């Protein structure tokens, strides 16, 4: 380089020459040795900074590349790879959500710092915004009503019809503008389901300390309240059906088993969008019903 040390920005590294020798080095030699030392330090620090930055960047990406666990994304999210590519990590979806269902991932979550996801058990999306505000807020189309041509929905991910919201049933336009599901609810732990055991449920589901909120139409259409403030008393537990925000997405059916015995069981139907309210309100630990992210409907 023509001018390797244009400006000494701070005090210089100690310019004292090497310990006194019989024959002291000339000023030019000393300067040259100092320059060499500076050049070495410069290379070292360049390597240090580059290594640190690239290492950190890759460590932020690798867990994502190998992520095994699927996350529930906000409604209208593109398929995982496209979603991760197009999300700009601004959090506008977080800001508009009336129940704060959407959270941004942190460093240790291992799937991208600042990428939004929903932990349905903690706080499900209950569509209390009526219009899927997060999709409206997204500036990059990572959440979208209408996918671009080259990103067609996977088979079974598309909804047969626009979901009808129970809350909007009396409105002139009762549907939710959503064409694709987030996932599908599955009875993953049937053995712990209260309905299947023929049990009812009384009290606060999820306990008094639970912070999750839900819109209860009989309380206030426009203001979701804490689930803990809405105790239940039902002879047969049907919380997942009762609180499901979408019509005809889940029901409790009587099933006849092979040996002729009859059994009650929650059954998920095609209109299920995978919002996760059933998972949030399920009174048993761990939830008997869960949303499988990105799951498709198989007839």
């Amino acid at each position, binding site marked *: 380089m023509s*001018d390797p040390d244009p400006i000494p920005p701070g*005090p210089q*590294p100690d310019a004292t020459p090497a310990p006194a020798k019989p024959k002291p080095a000339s000023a030019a030699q000393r300067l040259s040795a100092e320059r060499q030392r500076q050049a070495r330090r410069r290379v070292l620090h*360049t390597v240090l900074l580059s290594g640190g*930055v690239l290492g*950190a960047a890759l460590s932020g*990406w690798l867990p994502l590349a190998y992520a095994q666990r699927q996350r529930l994304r906000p409604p209208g999210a593109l398929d995982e790879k496209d979603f991760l590519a197009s999300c700009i*990590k601004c959090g506008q979806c977080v800001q508009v959500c009336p129940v704060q269902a959407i959270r941004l991932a942190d460093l240790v979550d291992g799937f991208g710092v*600042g990428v939004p996801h929903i932990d349905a058990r903690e706080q499900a999306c209950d569509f209390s915004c009526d219009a899927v505000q997060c999709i409206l807020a997204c500036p*990059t189309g990572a959440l979208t009503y209408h996918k671009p041509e080259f990103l067609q929905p996977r088979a079974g991910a598309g909804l047969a019809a626009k979901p009808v919201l129970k809350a909007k049933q009396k409105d002139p336009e009762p549907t939710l503008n959503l064409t694709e599901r987030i996932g599908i609810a599955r009875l993953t732990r049937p053995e712990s389901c209260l309905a299947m055991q023929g049990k009812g449920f009384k009290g606060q589901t999820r306990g008094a300390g639970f912070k999750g909120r839900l819109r209860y139409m009989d309380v206030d259409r426009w203001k979701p309240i804490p689930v803990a403030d809405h105790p239940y008393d039902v002879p047969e537990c049907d919380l997942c059906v009762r609180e499901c925000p979408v019509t005809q997405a889940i029901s409790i059916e009587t099933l006849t088993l092979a040996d002729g015995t009859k059994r009650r069981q929650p059954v998920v139907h095609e209109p299920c969008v995978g919002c996760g309210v059933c998972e949030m309100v399920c009174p048993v630990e761990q939830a008997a019903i869960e949303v499988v992210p990105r799951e498709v409907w198989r007839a």
Partner: protein
Amino acid sequence: MNNPLQKRFFEQIGQLFGREPTRPDEADISPAAQKIHLFKQGNRDFIAEKKHARAHAVKKNTWRNRRWATLITANLLFVLSYGLDVQLLEGSLTASRFIGFHLIDLNSALQVMLAHKHIIVNLLIGTGTVLLGWALLGGRTFCSWVCPYHLLAEWAEKLHLYLAEKKLVTDAPIDRRLRGVFWLVFALLALATGYTVYEAISPTGILSRALIYGPGLALLWVIALLAFEVFFSRRAWCRYACPIGLTYGVVGIVSPLRVKYTLEGCFHEGDCRKVCLVPHVLDTVIKGRAVDSEVPIGPDCTRCGLCVDTCPSGSLKFEVKGLSKLL
């Protein structure tokens, strides 16, 4: 634009990508500037004037205070918009909405476009308004007037300088071409992985989200960067690494708002270069280097105004190109 300035204009673009400034040939210095250079040589009146100015120097923080107030207000606006549900400025620094208008950070938008390989209208609108805004205000103005990391790094720099004065740390400069390399690497990574890899380590994004949505462990990375700057290399991230800075630097190449250097009154003491984040842009203030009697400072300048505050002779001033002619 006359010839010496034209040549310098392109040199400054080279400096943005890491070229070191060089002493201009005499042929590249305008006759007017040569006259002033000659006049100053061994001029006793001028030296007396310099000593007088030195004795009566008043420390000002006018522009720094204005800038800090702007930076804090901008970030506070984000925080309050969500925290108090004011909804003036929603989102965070990577992408936001100001009273409904999309504003999208250019570097983040670029990363998303490269990763996703598809561009939607909102993204284009948001990027367009921001592009126009920063092209007018001077690209890197974003750095010193908005970026929250800049403020933290400024405080870390004070600590670094204090420790350096005590001879506990030394500043090791790093090759400035590294920033261009990082920019390219992260662009290619976005393209190849289909993921905005840079966002995972962007201190701007991490800090902005931490302020608005609450702190997270990602802040550890920001702390590590600050520690590196305090103990090893002064302002290392902003000087040698940040791809956002380079993106905005390029945007600000044609900006009419800039710091202008006037050769005539300058005492060539270099106070401005001691406080500057990017001292190579102030190479022109070195005795004998100014190519004209008035020289605009190049695109890597963040318009932070520290040099304007510190200059004892008023030789460095903010100007809007063409405005003085218009008035």
